[in-house]
């Protein structure tokens, strides 16, 4: 947005160039996906209105000549009339329309992970050295029978009476969160596919269909069926290790999706199996699911189409009544339930929903796990927790609250250079992540970032092992749901009760 004479909106950031350092190499011009920079004859000129602080320019400036700063021009401080509100009013009064944003909410809400502390062993039971003694993170996602049924061989050896229901085996309890081809670039998906394969985990390709290049990674891919049914056909359902029905997303519960027509190029059109250049609309609901029994109907339609060989996951946003909803989902036959919390990411969502709808994953997860246990059906489905897992500590706490595994979305994009500027929906991502512009996508090397994703998850896994060792357990299943190992700080009685944990000191 360039300044117009009648706009009240000032640039949010200033892209400042130190002309004494600048060698006029023009790399910033090439690198900026937003067109902030241009060459003014003898120096680089910045259009501050275009800068989103994505960080690409200064990262790639060979002379460190660029600094991007917050516009120091202040608005009069007002704790009630925050500039966030004022700017949105100006924006909407000038151009109308629903405010759309990318990424999870940037607003300051209480982050419960930051108010939980972990336990460790001292004297009465020993901690375990994770570097030298065995430490197991292997995790299986899928329905488990509540009890083992045995048969015996002629020699009297016990054997399984029935094969186990299909499971996803993870070598470490992480998966890459669903992000579709369209919302992110194919190279970004490829980086995750390479990392998932190397790590022995899985990625979720989101609702945008399965690109041919990803087909060889099938054992490390969860395919998704969302309301738009993009690319969904029989072979697609059978091409991954599991199928996920996407009901909702933490950043936009109850809201559909919308990939603008200008992003539907040849390749995306082919992958999504839709006409070139038309909007790819994901309706808010699945139009074959208006009630819980309809979800059961779709789950079993998929099971029938996959000969009961693939676990079926259901992804929902954490909303107020999430415990009862997930209970219903489990009883409808889901093998995995993916719960996406309030702060979860998105490629595009109405800010009003992203910033105001849903509940935090910590609270949702705690209630869901407890509810399923009370009903005696916790074994019927695995739980994946998501919604801004920022560190291995968040992952450990989520698992202790009851998650089987956690999903990494934004963190994976940060690995690829994302600075969480929140402009994913514009398609101008300078890092080549949330864009389909070939000159931008090209710069994201799947091999390089696949390796960095591998590094991150490997490092986080080692950190989890350190924590398990300090807690005196050598297997992730002894942490899972063990809220006894969590204590709250600065939490109210209600919050502690919802989380099912004690306050520190008790």
């Amino acid at each position: 947005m360039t300044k117009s004479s009648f706009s009240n909106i000032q640039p949010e950031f200033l892209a400042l160039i130190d002309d004494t350092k600048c060698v006029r190499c023009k790399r910033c011009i090439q690198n900026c996906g937003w067109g902030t920079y241009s060459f003014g004859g003898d120096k680089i000129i910045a259009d501050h209105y275009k800068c989103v602080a994505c960080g690409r320019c200064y990262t790639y400036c060979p002379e460190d000549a660029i600094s991007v700063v917050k516009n120091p021009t202040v608005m009069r401080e007002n704790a009630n009339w925050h500039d966030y509100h004022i700017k949105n009013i100006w924006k909407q009064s000038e151009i109308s329309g629903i405010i759309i944003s990318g990424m999870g909410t940037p607003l300051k809400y209480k982050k419960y992970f930051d108010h939980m502390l972990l336990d460790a062993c001292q004297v009465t039971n020993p901690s375990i050295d994770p570097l030298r003694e065995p430490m197991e993170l292997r995790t299986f996602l899928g329905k488990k029978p509540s009890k083992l049924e045995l048969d015996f061989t002629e020699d009297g050896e016990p054997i399984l009476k029935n094969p186990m229901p299909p499971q996803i085996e993870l070598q470490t309890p992480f998966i890459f969160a669903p992000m579709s081809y369209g919302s992110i670039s194919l190279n970004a998906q490829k980086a995750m596919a390479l990392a998932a394969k190397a790590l022995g985990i899985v990625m979720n390709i989101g609702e945008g269909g399965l690109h041919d290049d990803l087909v060889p990674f099938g054992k490390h891919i969860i395919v998704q069926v969302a309301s738009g049914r993009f690319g969904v056909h029989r072979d697609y359902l059978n091409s991954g290790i599991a199928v996920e029905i996407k009901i909702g997303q933490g950043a936009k519960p109850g809201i559909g999706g919308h990939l603008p027509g200008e992003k539907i190029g040849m390749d995306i059109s082919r992958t999504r199996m839709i006409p070139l250049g038309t909007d790819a609309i994901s309706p808010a609901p699945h139009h074959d699911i208006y009630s819980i029994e309809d979800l059961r109907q779709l789950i079993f339609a998929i099971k029938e189409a996959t000969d009961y060989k693939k676990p079926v996951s259901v992804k929902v946003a954490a909303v107020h009544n999430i415990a009862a909803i997930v209970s219903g989902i489990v009883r409808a036959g889901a093998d995995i339930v993916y719960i996406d919390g309030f702060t979860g990411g998105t490629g595009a969502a109405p800010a009003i929903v992203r910033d105001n709808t849903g509940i935090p994953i910590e609270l949702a997860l705690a209630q869901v796990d407890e509810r399923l246990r009370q009903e005696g059906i916790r074994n019927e489905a695995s739980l994946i927790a998501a919604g801004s897992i920022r560190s291995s500590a968040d992952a450990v706490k989520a698992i202790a609250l009851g998650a089987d595994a956690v999903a990494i979305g934004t963190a994976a994009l940060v690995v690829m250079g994302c600075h969480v500027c929140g402009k994913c929906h514009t398609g101008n991502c300078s890092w080549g992540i949330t864009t389909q512009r070939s000159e931008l996508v090209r710069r994201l090397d799947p091999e390089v970032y696949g390796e960095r994703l591998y590094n991150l998850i490997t490092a986080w896994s080692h950190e989890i092992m350190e924590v398990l060792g300090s807690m005196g357990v050598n297997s992730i299943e002894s942490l899972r749901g063990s809220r006894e190992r969590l204590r709250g700080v600065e939490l109210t009685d209600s919050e502690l009760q919802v989380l099912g944990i004690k306050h520190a000191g008790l």
Partner: protein
Amino acid sequence: MLRLKNTFSIERDISGCGLCGIINIKKVKINGENIKRAIALEHDRGNGLGGGFAVYGAYPDYASLYAFHIMYDDIAAKNNVEEYLKKNFVIEKNEPIPVLKISKILDHPILYRYFMKPKSDREDRLFHDLKDDDFVVRSVMVINSQYDGAYVFSSGKNMGVFKGVGYPEDIADFYMLDDIEGYMWTAHNRFPTNTPGWWGGAHPFTLLDWSIVHNGEISSYGINKRYLEMFKYSLSLKTDTEVITYILDLLIRKHGLTIELATNILAAPFYQTIEKMDPPKRELFTALRQIYGSALLNGPFAIIFGFSDGMVAMNDRIKLRPLVAATKGDFTYIASEEASIMEMCPSPDIVWSPKAGEPVIVRTENVKAKNIVQKEEMVSL
């Protein structure tokens, strides 16, 4: 001051310990003198705040009846519980548990025992059809969680638990265990760390004829407890021993698993080991971990669990607690320290330390319990 129920606001009650066990596979009975000496040798593993014994074959005259041992804080508690018992059970005999007042055990609760069976026309039949065993389990949980000042500490058939606050050798004298005979004994010496010892918290812990003595603090207690709660177990004691007992009850009695498989759940083999197994076994053991991961006892433990037909001793999967075993003829001995075994049996046939997670399983032969063996005979073994 007596406290049958733990009044501390704690999530769990932890302790260190010493333990011993002895079993005769022909069900030849011996009295409690031997095991008392063995556990007394492990005196320093406890702190005088808990000792106890389980003895199998103790009540041959009432072998078909459930023998409830109940502690009461006061007469009112006793009256309340007895009202419940009369309503639901046919009580063949009830009497105070015989005790000897000794200087080292000054304060003790009212100790009573009841030989009884559930009534066939009991009220709960109106809304479900529990087997007698299940009804007994439920009754124990009802009394222990809902009746103030009362605690059932033994509920099996032809077996009994004798425990309290004190060193085990003093507890043995208090209950006059030299005069009681059984074909299997387990003993426990307790070192509680966060409660000053209370009668109900001493070991062994029992449920029906299961009895557990246990050493070590389970680091996976939190999830083990929540797992059991899913199957409607109510964990009132908050001890690891209670958790272990209920897990075994769930796996063996309710899910019908073999003892061997159950022990492979408590101390599950590592995936590295499982991967080396033959395919059918690998599938089975992978399934065990998938289904029963929440029942894995992670962290240090050594346990001896007894049941009517045998005894199992095992420790955790990376051997963080000690366990020694020995045999001599028809006898098998288990203890935290080898010296305790030597105290019971100076020249065993074999002595060994079981591997991490590898159970010692001893089953009695299918024989009726034999008459008392004299002490002299015993020593000569």
